[in-house]
């Protein structure tokens, strides 16, 4: 149920693999992923915008009870990350060595394996945050 189909993963490649979003030509809002209508101003014209891979943690949690796709990973840290130049996303925060997660922590997004196995046996990739 939570494991995406191969078709869906393919649709999401630009955003998930290349951090490709959109910049609203009317108001400058950064959308991630792209969509057809700007949620800030309602405009419909956009330029492709590649998100910065640098950002900060806005909030986080340590998940101890997970859904089936993430069960083998618990406990893991989940965070909301605000990126430099605009765009926010929810992702795992990982690779912390002798360090506690904190709000305001500077992080960098890295391309990682997200889910081991989709419905069609496809491995799903995306971004995770690591301290920088």
């Amino acid at each position, binding site marked *: 149920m939570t494991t995406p189909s191969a078709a869906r993963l393919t649709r999401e490649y630009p955003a998930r693999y290349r951090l490709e979003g959109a910049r609203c030509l009317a108001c400058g809002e950064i959308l991630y992923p792209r969509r057809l209508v700007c*949620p800030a101003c309602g405009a419909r014209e956009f330029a492709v915008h590649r998100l910065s891979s640098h950002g900060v943690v806005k909030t986080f*949690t340590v*998940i101890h*009870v997970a859904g089936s796709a993430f069960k083998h990973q618990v406990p*893991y840290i*989940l965070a909301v990350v605000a990126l430099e130049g605009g765009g926010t*996303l929810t992702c*795992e925060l990982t690779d912390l060595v002798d360090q506690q997660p904190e*709000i305001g922590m500077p992080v960098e997004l890295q391309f990682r394996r997200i889910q081991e196995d989709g419905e069609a046996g496809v491995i799903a990739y995306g971004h*995770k945050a690591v301290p920088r």
Partner: protein
Amino acid sequence: MRDVCIIGVGMNDWGELWDLSLRTIWTQAALAALADAGVDKVDAMTVGCMSGGLFVGQEHLGALLADELGMAGIPATRVESACASGGVALRTGFLEVASGLADVVLVTGVEKMTDCSNDEATAALATAADQEWEVFPGATFPGLYAMMARAHMAAFGTTREQMAMVAVKNHANGIHNPHAQYRRAVTVDEVLNGTMVADPLTVLSCSPITDGAAAVVLSDKETARRLAKGRPLVRIAGVGLATDRMALHNRADLTALNAVTAAAQKAYAMAGVTPEAIQVAEVHDCFTIAEIMIIEALGFVPRGQGGPATAAGETGLGGRIPVNPSGGLKSKGHPVGATGVAQAVEVTLQLRGEAGARQVAGARIGLTQNMGGTGASSVVHVLEVIP
């Protein structure tokens, strides 16, 4: 618009009901509400249900349940807004009576959550969040609320103990509710030392998985007067429904529930009241932090003061503004589609003075607040006793 009254209420005993099916628990609640109202026919029916499809593999609940009640033929439909499905079903029924399309409407909510595995239930609930951009990278429902809790703690100094007090209070109230799933007290220590689900939320910070149904009968004021039998008349004085950005990460302020505030403002304006006028409230405490953020969003306490106000007993029975006298989602249980309707059941009982040991003395005006997802949908009703 015509005045709309609640003329009958009912619910079944909530819990893990392995011996009963969705259609049976729903029918129990519907029959109780019809008997309470003193009617055996209705003009139309709504069913609030988040996911009959995922929990029990059954959709098309409007027709199924009308048939089950011996009422095949009436207009009947299922209403879905995740965990706010019940509250939105109530608003849908309100609109049918207010518009004059129907005189008597049966509003119901139901969820049968224990027929599937825990993993399947968790996955079904997670469909109320953004599947592609929250659940895919690893979010769970408790995880999203835990991130709201962290943000609230950082912004206002809200503590784990203050959050735990929400669970302590609601379990203390639920002891007095014969329909509640967990009729037992819990202590701050038990909440804090429970199994961690998503830090800082422990298992006792989260509402349970529940099988349950609830129903109310709505009518126009003239019909309500005819059927009142000397009981106080309860009118739906205000209705508000609002939405927010779906994904938590797309909201500018992670410590605010903007849809709750917007829905409340609509309901307050329609009822011609301010938050200070509310004497009893049933709110959506799906997680302890949720109740703290909700009482702020409803204007019961200033921004950031939800934690201290809870710890000071302001929201307890006998406090300044009693919140969740029924036990709330925490103790009464949270069969998601039924929750919003059960809130109206409780506030109606409170306004009629029929709430027994959990009665808020002299309550004449009350409020229900139900929400879906991390607050992307919220629906508020203001109920009042009328002469």
